[in-house]
């Protein structure tokens, strides 16, 4: 196979037909923005659902279980299409109109919400597992001091649980980061979408996807390093490190 390597393509600003370098940068930027915002949703919704899964109230537990099963078992790509094409039609007219016509960057918002809610089902399972790993005596002791159930979660169960689940939460974020590429199917110009676009313009497929791959790996590496640090930082003094590292 004869292939004309041309790494200049990925560095182009004004000297090429299109500023491909800027496209890559903007793609990477959107990948990060979508991932981080989706993670914030996943973390908060996941925490609420995870707590609900451990609630005393049976109804609450059922609702939480329903959420997890629903969002975990429908393929992400299908969910992306459902949120983008179907949900606006099902909503009341005004809301549907807002989503389709007035909201700026609707595909970006949709991707963030969709990714966030999808991954919240996983985060919820992590949070639940973390809470359940804490001996029941801790809850009893906290209640015996006069704390309300909400306070027990806030001051004892969640802080301990989050510390236990830092490693799975890290891989959750990685999952979001990688899955953010699915957003290209509804028109989000993130890193993969931009790479594809450049490939179509220049036919320098190898260079551009090499760069994309390296960028994905680089970000992953940074996240892992930061989370290792976080894990060390929040480790409870006097206890043995969990999960290697």
């Amino acid at each position, binding site marked *: 196979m004869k292939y004309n390597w041309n790494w200049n393509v990925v560095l182009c600003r004004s000297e090429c037909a299109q500023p491909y370098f800027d496209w890559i940068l903007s793609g990477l930027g959107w990948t990060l923005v979508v991932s981080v915002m989706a993670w914030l949703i996943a973390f908060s919704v996941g925490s609420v659902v995870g707590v609900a899964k451990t609630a005393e109230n049976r109804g609450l537990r059922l609702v939480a279980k329903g959420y997890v099963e629903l969002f975990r078992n429908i393929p992400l790509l299908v969910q992306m299409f459902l949120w983008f094409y179907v949900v606006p039609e099902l909503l009341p007219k005004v809301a549907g109109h807002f989503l389709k016509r007035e909201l700026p960057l609707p595909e970006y918002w949709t991707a963030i919400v969709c990714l966030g809610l999808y991954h919240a089902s996983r985060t919820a399972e992590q949070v639940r597992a973390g809470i359940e790993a804490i*001996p029941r*005596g*801790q809850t*009893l*002791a*906290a*209640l*015996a*001091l*006069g*704390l*309300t159930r909400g*306070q027990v979660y806030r*001051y*004892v169960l969640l*802080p*301990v649980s989050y*510390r236990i689940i830092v490693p799975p939460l890290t891989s959750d974020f990685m999952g979001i980061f990688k899955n953010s590429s699915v957003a290209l199917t509804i028109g989000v110009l993130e890193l993969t979408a931009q790479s594809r676009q450049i490939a179509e313009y220049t036919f320098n497929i190898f260079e551009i996807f090499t760069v994309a791959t390296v960028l994905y790996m680089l970000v992953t590496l940074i996240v892992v390093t930061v989370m290792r640090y976080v894990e060390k930082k929040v480790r*409870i*003094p*006097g*206890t043995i490190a969990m999960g290697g590292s």
Partner: protein
Amino acid sequence: MIEIQDVSKWFGDFRVLSNCSTHVAKGEVVVICGPSGSGKSTLIKCINGLESFQEGVITVNGISVGAEGTNLPKLRASIGMVFQNFELFPHMTIAENVCLAQLKVLNRSRAEAEERAAQLLNRVGLSNQAAKHPAQLSGGQQQRVAIARALAMDPIAMLFDEPTSALDPEMINEVLDVMVALAQEGMTMMVVTHEMGFARKVADRVVFMDEGRIEEDARTEEFFGAPRGERAQMFLSKILSH
């Protein structure tokens, strides 16, 4: 102060407590003993509503624990409880453990809470450990912190559920000493324990439980002098021979 009248409790079909009745007067120290599985922990947890019960009445300072509309958090805040496994919160320092409920339940100011914590840690002999975390302390030290944490709420009574059972023998006394001092200062106490030396020394009454029933409820000297029931005699001879 604590009145337990005809309390029965079931876990499903299993009857854990059968018509239990006893009481603890203000300033009194009552020791509960009995074989494993006899319902001691369950009974003591019913007093501050950590366990529910189906029949009978428990009142603390006139407030009915099981009644609907009872503000359980408020009631619990007024009763200290110490557990077999200490149950300090591992992510907090010793000082934070003692301060948490003072801040969040009693709404004390931080300065006030910290001062009270320092005072109590000093009292249990641990003022130099305040900045450490629970896992950095020995079992005996942790249990003394747990006592300080409970006392920080200025409780009207203290419940102890086998506070020395999880401790290495050489640490038992440092915890018992704190409890003896507390009893001698007039704290109302209900103590599940097999430490008969402690019972002899400070208990006003000893309650013996077996299979969910209160089989004996006697003044300490009577209990050790001549327990009436055969089961209690057997239990005592076993325990005292150790």
